[in-house]
């Protein structure tokens, strides 16, 4: 069970919250190993329990059952002071950045260093280095209210790295940012991982975040881990319904609607540069299933035929045939 390079190990973790009326179980049967140096993604729909899970790693939430090991250390056995000390080796960034609004950029980065008891001059020097690392050197005296979302997250990253942590936890760190800023923050995280070898745990509900930076991923669905493994294998062969739902957000539902009607499309010298089938799918907003295809490209002209299975919905199927005929193709319904 114990792997030599496991930095975080979660065993049979369960977390429930007791409310006035009842007990809500946010997580159950969680077993997870995160290896040193990897970028580990935890993905799930909102309410799946992923934010609670990441808070169990640094014990911001105490698990109801089970154990969390950080660097071989049983987190449940630590005293308050030891826990505070251990947390200095686990940086964390948040969706809403959570910067101190009344402190400058440098003041914010110095804060964790103050907690660790680093002398003031040394802390300032380190803070400037970190600010340069995240590319905000000129914003040293700015207050958070004067920064953009992406800049705030950069400051938060610098702050989280101040005490040279072994692990960086990212709780929906890019969910409040636009796509372009998201990409630049992800690139920064990837760079930090590569340069410093810091293990990064990424919590997200967006598949593209996982695609972009993660090496391994755990899919959380309904308080449990549905599937875990390397990102490439989960992408190509998702085993569970939860995984398929995330990998093909709309795909699964539509697949059901493919009916038994088939249509043969004959190409007799149309332009092969025109993506006819793809355009038809886009125009009719429904997928088709290609059953058979035999086409040739001769001097930019397409010859041959394709047989597709049409959607079950009669109206859409008829629309597709009409669309193809309009494009000057021979399209006819066939029985397979």
């Amino acid at each position, binding site marked *: 069970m114990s792997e030599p390079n496991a930095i975080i190990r979660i065993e049979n973790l369960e977390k429930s919250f007791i409310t006035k009326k009842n007990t809500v179980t946010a997580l159950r049967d969680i077993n997870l190993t995160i290896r040193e140096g990897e970028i580990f993604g935890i993905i799930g729909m909102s309410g799946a329990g992923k934010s609670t899970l990441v808070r169990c790693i*640094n014990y*911001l939430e105490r698990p109801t059952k089970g154990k969390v090991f950080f660097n071989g250390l049983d987190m449940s056995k630590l005293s*308050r*002071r030891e*826990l*505070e*000390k*251990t*947390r*200095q080796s*686990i*940086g*964390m960034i*948040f969706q*809403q950045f*959570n*910067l*101190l*609004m*009344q*402190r*400058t950029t440098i003041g914010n980065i110095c*804060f*964790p260093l*103050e*907690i*660790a008891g680093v002398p003031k001059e040394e802390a300032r020097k380190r803070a400037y280095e970190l600010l340069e690392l995240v590319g905000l050197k000129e914003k040293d005296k700015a*207050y*958070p*209210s004067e920064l953009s979302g992406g800049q705030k997250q950069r400051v*938060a990253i610098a*702050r989280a790295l101040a*005490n040279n942590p072994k692990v960086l*936890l990212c709780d929906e760190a890019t969910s409040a940012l636009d796509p372009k800023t998201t990409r630049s923050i992800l690139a920064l995280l990837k760079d930090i991982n590569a340069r410093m070898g810091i293990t990064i745990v990424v919590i997200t509900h967006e598949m593209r975040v996982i695609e972009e930076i993660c090496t391994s991923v755990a899919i959380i669905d309904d308080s449990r881990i549905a599937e875990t493994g390397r990102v490439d294998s989960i992408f190509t062969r998702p085993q569970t319904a939860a995984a398929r739902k995330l990998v093909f957000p709309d795909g699964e539902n539509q697949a059901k609607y493919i009916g038994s009607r088939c249509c043969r499309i004959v190409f007799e010298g149309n332009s092969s540069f025109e993506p006819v089938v793809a355009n038809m799918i886009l125009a009719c907003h429904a997928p088709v299933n290609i059953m058979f295809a035999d086409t040739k490209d001769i001097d930019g002209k397409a010859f041959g035929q394709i047989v597709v299975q049409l959607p079950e919905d009669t109206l859409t199927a008829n629309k597709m045939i009409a669309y193809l005929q309009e494009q000057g193709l021979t399209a006819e319904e066939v029985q397979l």
Partner: protein
Amino acid sequence: MDPATIQMLLQGIVDTLYMTAVATLLAYIIGLPLGVIQVVTAKDGIKPNRFVYTVLNVIINIARSIPFLIFLVAILPFTRAIVGTSIGATATIVPLVVAAAPFIARLVESSIKEIDPGVIEAAQSMGASPMRIITHVMLPEARPSILVGSAIAITTILGYSSMAGFVGGGGLGDIAIRFGYYRYDNTIMLITVAILVIIVQIFQEVGMWIATKSDRRK
């Protein structure tokens, strides 16, 4: 107006400012920690403690529900035990502090509660101890709001101090009651009221100005 009256009014201003300033300071020394304790020991606080929270909460509520004038009279023996007399500006400070401290505790509590819980969570994730969170996160982050609260507190205490005139508490309120109420001297009463209004305005404006100036959220 004769020099004696002017002299009396000036002394009234000095007494009022003295009572207000000292009472506010002492009330903050007591009320600020109480407000912090309320936030920290609350159910979602950084060190929940149901017993401490409930007891303190009840005491603050009781103290806040007693009208100041009744307070003033009720604690006369206590006042006499502390300052040796129950008359004059110094004696008035005691009931002012006792009445204002719970009020300030509530002001401080609500100021700290305005802080985004995420910021406190972030500090916890960095390994900050509860004491450091109080001194380095809660109080500095709530500073502008606490300053706004202190402008409210100081003007309220000023108002209370005028009521102390009814029991010979000294200051402008005392003058207004003695001359305006008992002797029907409307001129002096109007003058004292005008001075009180001006002092309140100054405190309020200066307080708000400092609060806005100190706020880095713009």
